[in-house]
């Protein structure tokens, strides 16, 4: 989710903290589509372990949908009455479910308070319980001497005469652009902002944008297509409270089963359902949203609803891309990013299948009615893959250490580097990869010649 502020996307994210599945790194080998990553699950696992501690993750180990892992830093948050109903239903159906793993404190941790279940996670946590980077990393970094420049907007990465990155041009208010020098430049501007900056920074020898020998800067955009189903229950569950956050998740349909008519799979996450305004404004299919209907909707929803969200693994396609808009500009006159994206048939088929299974899940849990949004139009906030990782400079933008093949002292430490996008939420993997790349950078700093 794009957010321009200290802490970036994590300020508004829902804090679902999920590791990729081992198969996510071997999609080409296993399913004959997309590409394999140059690294695997086992190589990343130690960094997942470390990053869980840094962000503060609540959950419980032992999930049969994953390889063994250490226990989480904190126990799981309560799954709520709605979670208990769905868990019991899945147990009867023989379907997977697991208590939600969230970067949300279930105990006081890391100098931050525990969650109070106010259900306002996506507006920024005013308790400080959510593991957003403005609280988990920036204060400590500043204590160690990092200088944070706020309200700054970078317009170009600059190169020296040898073609190495040597800093960035930026503005932090009225007045001329400023240049900040650096021996190493790290880009972490989201899978939309990062390729935009590389394309904006076209320079001598890099006419189609920096680090773009492969022509893949901005391409292979993946979006995690999302469907959402509301389950309405007769019994009061006080479901306006709870973390949001995932109460629980289901990976029953995350792995490929070709008999379903598509490859790869989806992750489901169960959430509470918010207050009366959310019920009133929800686009109830085929129904009016005012008058007696509004009252009926709130009466049916408030405290008696739960939400299954389904995120589908999107496959990378070169025509799904970010480029520069020829007309629209930002406040400083630089071209805005422009997105080209078509939902693939594989993703459509996958969501159609999942939506039927979600209906079965809620009915088994006792829901008397469901409200399906088969594709949530305003979602797609997990933009990923626009500067993919790989060993071959001709077919990838960054190497396995997330250094640009063309400019080795320019690193990309965000979701742009993803080769494929899994079905699970990306924050844990973005963070674990960044930690791994940072470790490598520190350990090999002598190789980063000035």
């Amino acid at each position: 989710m794009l957010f321009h502020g200290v802490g970036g996307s994590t300020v508004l994210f829902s804090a679902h903290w999920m590791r990729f599945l081992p198969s996510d790194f071997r999609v080409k080998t296993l399913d004959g589509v997309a590409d394999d990553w140059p690294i695997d699950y086992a190589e990343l696992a130690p960094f997942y372990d470390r990053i869980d501690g840094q962000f503060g993750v609540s959950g419980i180990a032992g999930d049969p949908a994953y390889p063994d892992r250490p226990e989480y830093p904190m126990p799981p948050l309560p799954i709520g009455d709605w979670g208990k109903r769905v868990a019991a239903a899945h147990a009867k159906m023989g379907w997977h479910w697991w208590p939600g793993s969230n970067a949300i404190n279930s105990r006081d941790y890391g100098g931050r308070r525990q969650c109070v279940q106010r259900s306002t996670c996506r507006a920024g946590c005013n308790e400080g319980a959510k593991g957003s980077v403005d609280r988990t990393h920036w204060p400590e970094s500043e204590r160690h001497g990092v200088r944070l420049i706020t309200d700054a907007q970078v317009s170009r990465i600059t190169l020296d005469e040898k073609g190495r990155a040597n800093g960035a041009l930026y503005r932090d208010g009225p007045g001329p652009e400023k240049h900040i020098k650096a021996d190493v430049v790290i880009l972490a501007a989201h899978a939309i902002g990062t390729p935009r900056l590389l394309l904006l920074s076209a320079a001598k020898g890099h006419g189609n944008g920096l680090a773009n020998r492969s022509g893949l800067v901005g391409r292979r955009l993946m979006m995690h297509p999302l469907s959402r189903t509301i389950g309405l229950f007769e019994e009061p569950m006080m479901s306006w409270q709870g973390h949001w956050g995932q109460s629980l998740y289901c990976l029953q349909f995350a792995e490929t089963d070709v008999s379903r008519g598509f490859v790869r799979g989806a992750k489901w996450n169960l959430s509470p359902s918010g207050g009366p305004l959310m019920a009133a404004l929800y686009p109830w299919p085929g129904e009016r949203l005012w008058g007696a209907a509004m009252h009926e909707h709130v009466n049916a929803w408030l405290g008696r609803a739960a939400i299954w969200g389904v995120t589908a693994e999107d496959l990378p396609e070169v025509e799904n891309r970010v480029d520069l808009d020829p007309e629209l500009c930002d406040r400083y006159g630089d071209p805005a990013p422009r997105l080209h994206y078509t939902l693939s048939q594989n993703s459509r088929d996958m969501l159609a299948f999942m939506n039927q299974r979600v209906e079965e899940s809620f009915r088994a849990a006792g829901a008397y009615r469901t409200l399906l949004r088969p594709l949530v139009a305003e979602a797609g906030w997990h933009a990923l893959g626009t500067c993919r990782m790989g060993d071959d400079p001709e077919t990838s933008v960054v190497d396995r250490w997330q250094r640009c093949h063309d400019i080795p002292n320019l690193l990309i430490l965000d979701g742009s580097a993803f080769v494929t996008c899994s079905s699970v939420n990306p924050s844990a993997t973005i963070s674990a990869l960044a930690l791994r790349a940072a470790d490598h950078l520190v350990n090999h700093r002598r190789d980063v010649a000035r």
Partner: protein
Amino acid sequence: MDDQPALDDQSRAQLAELAEVIAPRWGDLPAASEIALSQAPLDRVLALRPDLLAPLKAVLDRVRGRPPEAAMEKLESTDAAGLHTLLTVVAGAYYAHPDVRAALHYSGQQAQSLPRDGFGAEELVIEMMQQPPIYRKVD
């Protein structure tokens, strides 16, 4: 500091008529007019969401002069964004009002202590732990 009211009297009167259609009396729930929605409740919403003022004025301008029911139908058929703005303002003001909350038995999203007796489905988790792995082996 701009001391001008967020909406002029004409616009408030128009909004009051629309709000009565959006939120009529329903069982124990008061009608918009019974909580004077177009006065302090409206101002509260616009104080919290000043970004809604301009689009609200715009949507009111677009349906000015129409009977409220006809205005709502017009918005529904031709102006989804405008309808959403209007509903956000009116429903936001309505459901934030203490009389409405009391009628709904809704206390708002409150800070709560976490339960100390676990996350709520321990026995089912133990059952799930005993299941064979479902992830694909890659080696």
